[in-house]
């Protein structure tokens, strides 16, 4: 079977369409299962009471934000290096979902911080790095939005994403450094509660649910992007450009 034909957007389009329900429905089921385990089976935490249950959405969202950025950079890089349009379109599609998960992680982090540590926003290393990750996403999305030519947008995005992904460890390190310097008392902020089996299970189920959801949503958006580009192309063809 020649898989390379799926590198063409037009050929991948129907395949993507068929795949979507295979990810969307299990995603919904896993969300339900994860929340069930998280709320009905996992016990109340000794230190944080029931407030800790926010982690079942906060932690998976944070991880997804990071994974999707790296994935986006990889797809963008492949699209640039091999001149593979579909790969670049995938990167553009991943960006918004990744940014969304990062935003969710910041907001739920704030909701978790207020009852446990007293303030809505805490400048600890993780939250600060997540905020910077959101800025990196916004930069990527803005750059692609500002460029009209699709291929230039793809390639420019690739450069930005690759520069970003290389900088992420440096940024994380510098934020860690900054944070440890400025902490007065050694309070480990937003520390996760001691993980029991059922909590870990709920966490992993929710993470899997987020992954499946991401695949489904990214494929839907990818189809939209394919349609948009194809329409633009045919519009140009009609005019004789």
């Amino acid at each position, binding site marked *: 079977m020649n898989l390379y034909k799926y590198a063409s957007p037009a050929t991948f389009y129907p395949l993507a369409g068929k795949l979507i329900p295979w990810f969307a429905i299990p995603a919904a089921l896993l969300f339900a299962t994860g929340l069930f385990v998280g709320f009905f089976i996992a016990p109340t935490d000794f230190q944080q009471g029931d407030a800790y249950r926010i982690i079942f959405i906060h932690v998976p969202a944070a991880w997804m934000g990071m994974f999707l950025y790296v994935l986006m950079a990889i797809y963008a890089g492949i699209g640039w290096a091999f001149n593979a349009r579909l790969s670049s379109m995938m990167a553009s599609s991943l960006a918004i979902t990744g940014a969304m998960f990062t935003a969710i992680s910041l907001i739920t982090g704030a909701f978790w911080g207020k009852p446990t540590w007293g303030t809505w926003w805490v400048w600890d290393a993780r939250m600060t790095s997540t905020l*910077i990750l959101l*800025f990196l996403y916004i930069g990527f999305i*803005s750059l692609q939005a*500002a460029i009209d030519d699709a291929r230039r947008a793809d390639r*420019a995005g690739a450069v930005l994403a690759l*520069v970003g992904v290389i900088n992420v460890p440096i940024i994380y390190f*510098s934020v860690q450094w900054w944070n440890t310097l400025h902490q007065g008392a050694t309070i480990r902020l937003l520390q996760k509660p001691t993980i029991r089996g059922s909590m870990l299970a709920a966490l992993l189920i929710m993470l899997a649910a987020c992954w499946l959801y991401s695949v489904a949503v990214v494929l839907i958006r990818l189809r939209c992007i394919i349609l948009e580009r194809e329409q633009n192309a045919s519009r140009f063809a009609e005019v004789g450009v």
Partner: protein
Amino acid sequence: MLRWIVWRDLMLAWRRRADMLSTVFFFVIVVSLFPLGIGPETQLLRTIAPGVVWVAALLASMLSLGRLFANDYQDGTLEQLLLTPQPLFLVVLGKTLAHWIVAELPLVLIAPLVGVQFDLSGETLWILFVSLLVGTPVLSLIGSVGAALTLGLRGGGVLISLLVLPLYIPALIFGAGAVEASVMGTSPSAHLSLLGAFAIVSLLFSPWATAAALRISLE
């Protein structure tokens, strides 16, 4: 070739001296705004000085980045430079060096003067100067990537800021951190070493990224 590019850019910048000066004035004004907004209490000012001066330097750099490639792009020189047999890497390095001399070096030189407004000691002013001397090349280098990516786009300065400011954060943390260490009486050497390392890494990688971005923007 490198020398020629640097010299040419310096000459062109000299003919537009006003641009150079406006960057410096912007820097000075922004730094002066903070005490006006926060209050003149000396202890507080001494604490915020490192961050304020560094952030003002970042913002002033952002404003000047648009000029790095825009003028050559508009009159077609940039396309010609891309066609020369010389490696684009060198062209970029030359232009970035010229940009640093024109846009950043004045800030570095005037920073100690501005630092006096915040009642910083002589030792701290020296560290401020050194930190900016080591750190501003990073601003030019990483900034050049942003300038190359956004060539010819509407949205101009704001778009470059969105792209580049997050990438500046390590430089800000180490640079301002060094000055703050000095204010508190501890040694700034660790911060300055990290800043230097970051500068060297930027020097090695940014020109390549900028060259690639230029090719992408000019196709």
